[in-house]
């Protein structure tokens, strides 16, 4: 097939844009323009559908602790990517890269987790590349 005109290419591109991403649940509540890098201690790993959650206590510079709920995708998707429920347990120290809620509440969407041994995993968020990553301030120094 040869597309000779810019218009035809534009049409194809528009068609591509119009194709819906079929997902069950919208992640539009999360900020797509920045990410947080959080280092904390797991208080609970909720292994459920429709989505899982990593509950994380994050030490603050003033000595207090801030609690974050880190939402994952469906545990079925995660299992197909190699995740298991026993990979995270209370007390584990993790680093997560996550997109925060737009409304400022302390929850975020997991994009990448780093385990204590340095291994990284992603939960397969649809359109994960559409989330703009903010450099980790700790590693950026």
């Amino acid at each position: 097939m040869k597309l000779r005109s810019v218009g035809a290419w534009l049409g194809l591109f528009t068609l591509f844009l119009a194709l819906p991403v079929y997902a069950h649940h919208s992640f539009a509540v999360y900020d797509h323009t920045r990410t947080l890098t959080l280092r904390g201690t797991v208080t609970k790993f909720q292994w459920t559908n429709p989505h899982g959650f990593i509950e994380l206590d994050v030490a603050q510079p003033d000595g207090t602790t801030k609690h974050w709920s880190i939402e994952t995708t469906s545990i079925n998707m995660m299992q197909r990517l190699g995740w298991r429920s026993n990979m995270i347990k209370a007390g584990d120290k993790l680093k997560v890269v996550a997109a925060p809620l737009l409304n400022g509440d302390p929850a975020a969407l997991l994009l990448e987790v780093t385990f204590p041994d340095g291994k990284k995993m992603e939960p397969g968020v649809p359109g994960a590349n559409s989330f703009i990553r903010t450099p980790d301030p700790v590693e950026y120094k």
Partner: protein
Amino acid sequence: MTASSRLATAIVTGFLVSGSAGAQGVPSQARPVPDITGSWQRLGATVGVRPTAKPDPKLLPPPAAQPVLKPQYQQERQQRLQAIREADAKGQPLANHNVYCIPDGMPAMMNAVFPMEILQSRGQVTIIAEAYNQVRRILMDRPQKTLDEVELTFYGHAVGRWEADTLVVDTIGIKENVRFQNTPHSAQMRIRERMRLVAPDILWNEITIEDPVTLEQPWTFTYAYQRMPDYTLLEYICEDNREYSDEKGLQQIRIAK
């Protein structure tokens, strides 16, 4: 082995008995039918599926068409799609059925966001969608009921028969609030499906939706699925959904303290 001979082998080795027992349990003549039993995932799906090798482009169906609705329903659909886009852009998505742990129903379940399983047994073809543990029962070789005889449900009343190498399915009785791609439909919607193997492990399902109330013309599109011999469907229970709908119908999330 060529693709066509492998396909023939799949049909012959999948020696299943079609219509072996009618509604009254009277055996009819056994004949081989294609073997479509197994786990499948939709070709082209990018969410929730396992990565697979790029399929032969010839095995991909044509791009899906949009519905041609009567003006008032077209307007209703466009307004809904616009409202969804605007709400998403504001970061305040509208709560959809999944926020209430309600499954997709027909025909959306055939979109197979997660894998699905097809089982062929005596007098019935069963389709199970992994997402939300959805189950469809296609009753083989029996007449379709009238709309008056069935209750409206998520999966409707489905009857099927093999026409040569094609499983032909007729489904009626879908609840009006069970929406596919935000498309309004009436209780008179009828879903016709034609499923056939276009390669030993590639199944096409040509779906035609008819609705004398809402559609100007039948809406036809095709899904293709790839067989996954080594995949067993996982359980899916919407067990603890921390999404909820607020008083404005917007999707919110429950945060642990």
